[in-house]
C-alpha cells in the first residue's frame, strides 16, 4: 500500500515546551491508524499539525506526495483531509441535513447535488430520520455521528477523528466502530483516529502509533502494541519489585 | 512661550478626567467583559445628578462627586446583578444590543425630563485661573484633573491592597478558578460593574466643570472611552490614564493647529490603527 500521509521528523514547540519531538510515521492508503498515548503525550498536537491548526517547527508533513505543513484548514479540506472536533461543533441553528449539506458543498456546487450527497452520508451514519431536526436538539451520540457525517460529506481521502468516542456508552462505541469499519471497507477511506477509548482503537485500527512525551515509542498492530513493555510502562508505570 | 503649550497643558489636564472615565470602562469591559455601550450615558446621568444637587441643595460639584458616585455604584451593581448576569453565557451580540437599548433609554429619559437644551453648573471659581510664569491654567481644569487623579490613585490602592480588589482581579483573570476557590464570582462582577459606574460618575462630575451636559452627550463619550481603553490597553490602569492623556493632548493640538471640530478625527484614526496593528493597546496584555 502506498503512503497517503507521511510525517517525517515533525516537531512543534510552544514557548520552550517541545510538545512534539521528531515524530515520524506513515499512514498507508486505505488503512485505519490509531494514535494513542497518555494525556499530554502530544497526540492532540500531532493531530492539529496535520489538520492545519498549527504549523510544524521542524520536519515535513507530506500528503499524496505534497508538503502540506502549515496550510490552512480550508485548503487542506480541498486537498482531501477532513476532521472532526473533540467537542462536537454542530451548526446549531441549522437542521441535521443542512449541516451535512455544508460539508457536501465542498465538492458539489449545486444545492440539489449537495442535498443528495448529504442525504447519502446521513443514511450511512444512521441520521436519516433526523434530517429536519435542528442540530442543537441532538443527543451526544447523535452529535458525534453528525460530526462524522459532515466531515464525510466533504468527500475526503483522509478522515481525522479527534476522540470521536469520548463520552459514548460502550454500546454506542460499538455502533460507531461498526459504522466506521464498514465505511472504510466499502469506500476505501483512510482514517486516523486519536483516542483514549481503547476498546474502539483496538477494534478498529489496522495499526497503532503510540506517543509519549512528544516522541513515538511504538508502532504496530493492536496486539503487538498492547504487549509492548514500553507502552505498558507509559500507561501504567514501571513495576517495582 | 509658543501658543500651543497652553493647549497641550489644558489637554493634559482634561486627559486626566478622560482617563478616569476610561478607567471605569476598563474595569467593566476588562473584568466583567461587558461591552458597555451605555458608558457615556451613565456618565450623563451622573452629570444631571450633580446639576440637580446644585439646584436643590446648593452642593458644589466637588462635594456632589462622592454622592453621585455612590448612587451610580448602586445602579451599576443592580444592573449587573439583576440583568447583565444572564448574558454571560449568551452570544456576545445579545449583550451589545442590550446595552445599546439601555443607552437609548437613558438618553431619551433625560431628554424627557430635562429637555434638549444644555445645562451647566455654576461655580464661584469658574472664570479663575492660576498663572505659572506665562502658563495659564484654568482653575476648573486643575480641580477636575486633581479630582480625577485622586480617584485613580484611590482605585489603584483598592485593587492592589484591599481584599475585595484582589478578589475582583482574581475573578477577572480566572473566573472558573476563582469560583472553585470559593469566591462568589457573580457578586464580585456586580461590585466591579458598580465600581466602573462610580468611576464614570466621578469623571462626569469633574467633566461638568469643563463642559455642559445635554441628553445626547453620552454617545460621543462612550466612543471616546472605548478609544482610550483600546489605545491604552484593556485591563491596564496606567494604560487608561496614558490613553486619556494622549487623547486629551491630541485634542488640544488639533484644536490649536487645525480646527476644534476635527479633534475627534485623530482619536478615531488612532483607534482604527490600534485595532488593526496592536489590539492589546499600548500597555495591555495580549488577551
Amino acid at each position, binding site marked *: 500500500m502506498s503512503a497517503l500521509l507521511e510525517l517525517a521528523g515533525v516537531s512543534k514547540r510552544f514557548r520552550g515546551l517541545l510538545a512534539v519531538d521528531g515524530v515520524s510515521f506513515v499512514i498507508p492508503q486505505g488503512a485505519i491508524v490509531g494514535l494513542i498515548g497518555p494525556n499530554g503525550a502530544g497526540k492532540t498536537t500531532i493531530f492539529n499539525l496535520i489538520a492545519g491548526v498549527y504549523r510544524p517547527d521542524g520536519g515535513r508533513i507530506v500528503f499524496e506526495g505534497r508538503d502540506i505543513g502549515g496550510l490552512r484548514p480550508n485548503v487542506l479540506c480541498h486537498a482531501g483531509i477532513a476532521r472532526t472536533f473533540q467537542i462536537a461543533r454542530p451548526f446549531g441553528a441549522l437542521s441535521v441535513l443542512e449541516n451535512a449539506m455544508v460539508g457536501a458543498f465542498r465538492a458539489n456546487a449545486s444545492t440539489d447535488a449537495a442535498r443528495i450527497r448529504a442525504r447519502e452520508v446521513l443514511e450511512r451514519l444512521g441520521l436519516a430520520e433526523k434530517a429536519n431536526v435542528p442540530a442543537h436538539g441532538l443527543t451526544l451520540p447523535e452529535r458525534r455521528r453528525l460530526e462524522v457525517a459532515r466531515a464525510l460529506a466533504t468527500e475526503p481521502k483522509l478522515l481525522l477523528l479527534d476522540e470521536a468516542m469520548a463520552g459514548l456508552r460502550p454500546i454506542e462505541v460499538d455502533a460507531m466502530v461498526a459504522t466506521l469499519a464498514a465505511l472504510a471497507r466499502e469506500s476505501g477511506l483512510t482514517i486516523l483516529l486519536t483516542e483514549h477509548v481503547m476498546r474502539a482503537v483496538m477494534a478498529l485500527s489496522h495499526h497503532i502509533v503510540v506517543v509519549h512525551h512528544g516522541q513515538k515509542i511504538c508502532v504496530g498492530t493492536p496486539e503487538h502494541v498492547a504487549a509492548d513493555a514500553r507502552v505498558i510502562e507509559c500507561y501504567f508505570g514501571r513495576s517495582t519489585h | 512661550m509658543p501658543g500651543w503649550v497652553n493647549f497641550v497643558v489644558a489637554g493634559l489636564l482634561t486627559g486626566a478626567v478622560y482617563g478616569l472615565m476610561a478607567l471605569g470602562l476598563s474595569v467593566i469591559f476588562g473584568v466583567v467583559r461587558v461591552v458597555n455601550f451605555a458608558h457615556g450615558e451613565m456618565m450623563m446621568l451622573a452629570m444631571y445628578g450633580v446639576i440637580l444637587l446644585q439646584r436643590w441643595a446648593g452642593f458644589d460639584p466637588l462635594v456632589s462627586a462622592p454622592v453621585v458616585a455612590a448612587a451610580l455604584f448602586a445602579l451599576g451593581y443592580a444592573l449587573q446583578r439583576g440583568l447583565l448576569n444572564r448574558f454571560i453565557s449568551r452570544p456576545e451580540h445579545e449583550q451589545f444590543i442590550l446595552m445599546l437599548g439601555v443607552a*437609548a433609554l437613558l438618553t*431619551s429619559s433625560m431628554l424627557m425630563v430635562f429637555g434638549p437644551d444644555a445645562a451647566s453648573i455654576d461655580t464661584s471659581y469658574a472664570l479663575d485661573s492660576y498663572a505659572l510664569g506665562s502658563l495659564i491654567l484654568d482653575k476648573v481644569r486643575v480641580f477636575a484633573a486633581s479630582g480625577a487623579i485622586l480617584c485613580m490613585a484611590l482605585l489603584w490602592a483598592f485593587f492592589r491592597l484591599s481584599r475585595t480588589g484582589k478578589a475582583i482581579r482574581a475573578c477577572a483573570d480566572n473566573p472558573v478558578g476563582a469560583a472553585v476557590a470559593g469566591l462568589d464570582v457573580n457578586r464580585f462582577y456586580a461590585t466591579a460593574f458598580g465600581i466602573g459606574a462610580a468611576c464614570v460618575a466621578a469623571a462626569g462630575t469633574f467633566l461638568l466643570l469643563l463642559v455642559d451636559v445635554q441628553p445626547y452627550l453620552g454617545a460621543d463619550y462612550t466612543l471616546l472611552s472605548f478609544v482610550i481603553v483600546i489605545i491604552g490597553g484593556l485591563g491596564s490602569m496606567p494604560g487608561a490614564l496614558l490613553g486619556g492623556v494622549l487623547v486629551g493632548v491630541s485634542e488640544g493640538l488639533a484644536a490649536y493647529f487645525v480646527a476644534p471640530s476635527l479633534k475627534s478625527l485623530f482619536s478615531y484614526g488612532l483607534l482604527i490603527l490600534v485595532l488593526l496593528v496592536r489590539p492589546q493597546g499600548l500597555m495591555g496584555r495580549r488577551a
Partner: protein
Amino acid sequence: MNRRQGLALALAGALLVAAPVFVGPYLLSVLIVFLVAAYLGQCWNIMMGFAGQLSIGHALYYGLGAYTAAALFAHFGTLPWLGVILGMAVAALVAASIAALSFRFAVTGVYFALLTIAFNEFTRILFEHFEWVGGTAGLFLHVAQINATDLVHLRGSPGMFYYLLLALSAGALWLSRALLRRRIGFYWLAIREDEPAAAALGIDTFWMKLAAVTLSGALTALGGGIVAFYDNNLYPDTIFATSRSVEIITAPIIGGMGTLFGPIVGAFLLTTMGEAMTDFGAEFGVPGLKQWLYGGALVAIVLLQPAGVWPWVRDRLGLGEGLR
C-alpha cells in the same frame, strides 16, 4: 413555501401595492419610512443575520451612497441613476477595504463592531468639513416638478418613490431568499454559527465574510442614493449619525435576525409604533418618546425573545416551515 405562507405573502403584497390609492399623504410618508427601514434592515441582515458579522456603523454606506449620487447631481448634473450606481461602487470599495483590513488582522466580534463605528464617525467628521458637499450647512438638491413622474431622473411624487422602494424591498427579499438557498448562503450561516468548524469543512471564511460585508454595504448605499432624491437635503450629522446606524439595526433585531421576513416585520412594528409615539409626544410636549420606544424594544426583545418577533408570529400563525 407552503400554501398558507404563499397566501399570506400574496395578501400582504396586494395590500402594499394598493395602499397609495387609499391612504393620504401623511400615511404614505409613514409607509415610505417603513419601506426604507425594511429595505435597509434586509441589507444589514445579509451581513449580520446570515454571516454573523456585527456592524454598528452602517450609516457609513447609506451616507456614501446618498452623498455620491446627490453631489454628482448637484455639481455636474450627473444622471441620478448613474450617481446611485457610482455610490454603490464607492460603498462597495469602502466596505471591502474595511472588511479586508479587519479580517486580515483578525479583528472580530466586539472589536470589529467598534471598528465599524470608528469608520462611521471618522467619515461623518470628514464630511462635516468637506465643503464640496456642503459641509455642516448641508447639501440641497434642486426640487423640480414633483408632480411629474420621472423615474429616469428620480424626480417624482411620493407615490413614485413608494413604489420604487417597494420594488427595492421586494428585490431584497428575493435576493436574500436566493442567497440562502445557494452554497454562499449555507456557507455564511456556517460561519455565523461556528467559524473554525466552517473552515475545517473547506470554507474560505475570509472571502465569504468579505463578500457579505461588501454586498451589504453596496445595497445599503443603493437605498441611500435613492432616498437622497426623495429627501432632497443631506446633512452629515444626520446621515452619518451613529443613531441612524442604531436605527438601521433595530428593526431587523426586533423582527428577527437571520430570518427572511424578520427585518420587514420589525420595520413595520417599529415604524407604526414610532410614528404613534412621535405624534403622542408632540401632542403632550414630551420629546424623545420614539427613541425611548426603540431602546425599550431592544431591551425587551433581547431579554424575552432574542430570536425576534417574526419567528414567534410565524409559529403562532402556522406560517412556519423550515428554520428561517
